[in-house]
């Protein structure tokens, strides 16, 4: 299990969100999630300009084993997507918290970040799942 970066916040459903310097929010799936899914083979991302709503499915990550919806941790407008994943979805397996990011939103309700799990709470949740 790799170290969870301290500047991330999490959903119970294993998405992470990070507030960048410009106030935008980068979103991805956790290292634990990629481990559960195994080798990723396809990623379906929203389009730039789409609006996403916190708690709603807005992307799909698909591994050899299973297809899994990705839920938006916060509401907002998509300003960037990680197009490199179309050719190299395995980047998520290799670097879930870095190069394997999925998309960026301009948050419409930045306070929603406060409702997400802190890294320690997420780590605890994973530990409980293991038992």
């Amino acid at each position: 299990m790799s170290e969870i970066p301290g500047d991330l916040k999490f959903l119970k459903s294993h998405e992470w969100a990070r507030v960048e310097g410009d106030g935008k929010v980068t979103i991805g799936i956790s290292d634990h999630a990629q481990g559960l899914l195994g080798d990723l083979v396809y990623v379906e991302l929203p389009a730039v300009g789409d609006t996403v709503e916190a708690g709603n499915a807005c992307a799909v990550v698909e591994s050899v084993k299973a297809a899994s919806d990705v839920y938006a941790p916060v509401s907002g407008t998509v300003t960037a997507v990680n197009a490199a994943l179309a050719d190299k979805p395995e980047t998520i397996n290799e670097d879930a918290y870095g190069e394997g990011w999925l998309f960026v939103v301009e948050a419409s309700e930045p306070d929603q970040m406060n409702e997400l799990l802190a890294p320690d709470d997420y780590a605890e949740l994973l530990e409980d799942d293991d038992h």
Partner: protein
Amino acid sequence: MTRKTILNDTHRALGAKMVDFGGWDMPIHYGSQIEEHHQVRRDAGMFDVSHMTVVDLRGAGVRPFLRQLLANSVEKLHKPGKALYTCMLDAQGGVIDDLIVYYQSEAWFRLVVNAATRDKDLAWITAQAAPFGVEVVERPELSMIAVQGPTARERVIGLLAADDAARVGKLGKFSAAGLAGTRFGDLFVARTGYTGEDGYEIVVPEAHAVSLWNALLEAGVKPAGLGARDTLRLEAGMNLYGQDMDETVTPYEAALGWTVALDEGRAFNGREVLERQQRDGVPRQMIGLVMDEKGVLRHGQKVLTAHGEGEILSGTFSPTLGKAIAFARVPAGDLAGGVRVDIRGREVPVRVVKFPFVRDGVAL
């Protein structure tokens, strides 16, 4: 209670992710399922298949018994070590299991059957064997390691003494040899597999399984999990029991007609139903599919044809082709009008293709 093979600790030490498979705690992968898949296609990989059930049948009546038990004909087996792939049917022609039968002598045949079907297989075989006076002996003390890939044979041969190496090197496809007193005990080495690559399946006494595994590892054979085994066998066009066929279908509805021998004068279980289907046609057919669009075909997805709906049986992402492949069962009839698959509400066109999808490492 989950069962473990003797290699369980070895898998864990190699970093395997373990899953429950038919009541057994087995490695699904050791890091990357796709890398393990390519390793087998390009070089050599090994699988712990000790969960599979080895059953020895002994007695003077074993050949007549197998003539009745199996849909393929053991009359094709007369050379010691020769193997045959076959279905075991019930009276309705439904598939109880698929298996490999090895001829050893007129008083000894060996079966290797699936792990998930062990209990019902043994019950069925034992009941059917009684009138023939055949002794049914399960061999749980035997482990099994499949070594597969273009360099698999040379790597196995390199571990054997000269005379054994010569015998194993000369084995034809679908043949086996018993080797007595090797450094890994008494071995039964069969040139068979479930990947579409050349290689061996090695039956080894449990007490020697770990040392054989480690010797293979040192010889450059990499461990591969059940995940890669599944993508390899589907690319190779091989059925998986429980997913592609079961008691509700006959071999003709599971693209296994080639394993049925309607040889004269042999009254085997299910024969009447198969002959009727042969005469009147079967209501359903099993087909191979390739999807050129993005996404993965998966078990249970709805398949739409001009003659009605069917469903995906085995479906996966093919690492060799870089796209999704599947088996599907659909109503009988010509499919020139096109086939679509419902993927989460979207109807995606797919191509109907002959299988295997891949043979000896090459996309077909």
